[in-house]
């Protein structure tokens, strides 16, 4: 399909609501990687907002909230995976440019065509490690083909005198240390096999990691491995 270069017109019609469904989907996909388009859409949404405000306020039926809550809970896992996949995708795009100047990175992130194809296919898994309150703290992507696990911390850093340590948690049997996870992004060689449904956990350990080979501190974050794509 021809690319619509009229970014302003496209953004304006997107907000107006007159694009046909395929055009709208294209815009939504492009917004993810085209900051100029995202800014243009935001601009148009703000510019025309007074017309929406004109509609006033009508309290929705009381029953609506319960239905919405039921729907998001039913779709809980699917929704979580959706968000997770986007997080992982963004993170992959971002890690492509590690070691390259930020300006170059921006160019790479800005265009899908310049992003190298994903590494050789192996089994891949992703996991979001959540704390007790449900807040995501780490995203892990495992590629058994290249034998690597990429761990990205998106939550708080450990206290200065502590380390986060990553653990493989099989359905049964002892947990296996996968190393200290203090850096914002760690790329590690895997020396253990991982299986669908296993969990990854992060414990809080003395600086440098557990001295015993088993977790000595509290498990602060945990998440199940889910097959990716």
């Amino acid at each position, binding site marked *: 399909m021809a690319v619509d270069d*009229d970014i*302003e*017109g496209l953004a*304006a*019609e997107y*907000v*107006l*609501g*007159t694009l*046909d*469904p395929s055009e*709208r989907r294209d815009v939504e996909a492009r917004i*993810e990687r085209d900051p100029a388009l*995202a*800014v243009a*859409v*935001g*601009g*148009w*949404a*703000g*510019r*025309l*907002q*007074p*017309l*929406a*405000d*004109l*509609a*006033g*306020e*009508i*309290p*929705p*039926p009381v029953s*609506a*909230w319960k*239905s*919405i*809550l039921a*729907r*998001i809970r039913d*779709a809980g896992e699917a*929704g*979580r995976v*959706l*968000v997770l996949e*986007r*997080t992982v995708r963004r993170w992959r795009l971002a890690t492509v440019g590690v070691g390259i100047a930020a300006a170059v990175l921006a160019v790479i992130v800005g265009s899908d065509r310049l992003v190298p194809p994903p590494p050789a296919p192996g089994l891949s898994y992703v996991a979001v490690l959540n704390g007790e309150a*449900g*807040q*995501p703290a780490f995203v892990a992507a495992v590629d058994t083909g290249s034998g690597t696990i990429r761990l990205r911390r998106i939550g708080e850093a450990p206290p200065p005198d502590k380390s986060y340590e990553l653990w493989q948690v099989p359905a049964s049997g002892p947990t296996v240390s996968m190393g200290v996870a203090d850096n914002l992004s760690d790329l590690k060689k895997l020396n253990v096999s991982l299986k669908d449904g296993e969990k990854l956990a992060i414990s809080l350990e003395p600086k440098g990691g557990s001295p015993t080979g088993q977790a000595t501190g509290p498990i602060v974050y945990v998440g199940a491995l889910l097959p990716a794509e």
Partner: protein
Amino acid sequence: MLGSTSDGAPQGELVTLMAAVASRNEAAFKTLYERTSAKLFAVVRRISVSEAAAEEALQEAWVRIWNNADRFDPAVASPITWMTTIARHTAIDSVRRGAERVSATAIEIDEELAEKLPAPGATADGLGGPHLRRCLDGLEADRRGMVLLAYCYGWSREELSRRFDRPVATVKTVLRRSLIALKECLGGR
């Protein structure tokens, strides 16, 4: 212009709520719903063909808000404009899936719109922000009608094409030109 929502919820508070919703916080989601759902329902109700369709669209819109909250970027839009865009698109999706709207609806809408459209030289405050109102005033009547029918009532290019008896491709061109004229009138903001 977008400093606060009409119900007085401060913008900063909505931004904080959005961030919590992005991390799957149901309590924050409920608060966000309580603060903004009446506004979104009014927007959706205006586009939908019936009360039932509006309620269904509202529910779907809130599921989309929940699922996409991590995409919200406070640097490019305020929470209320971001949610309004989602709600309008959801209602429009529902209308386009359904049977074609009957022409009687169109007549009713035209009359309702005519009441809201500013009279030449009028200084009433009915139509949106004062700047936007002045700039809409500056558009030729047909063009103003197209923009308003599309934005407020979710009319498609095809519906506008029939109503204004212009080819669909022309409608697209006219809409884009009208919107760019609006932007220029608003000082390019």
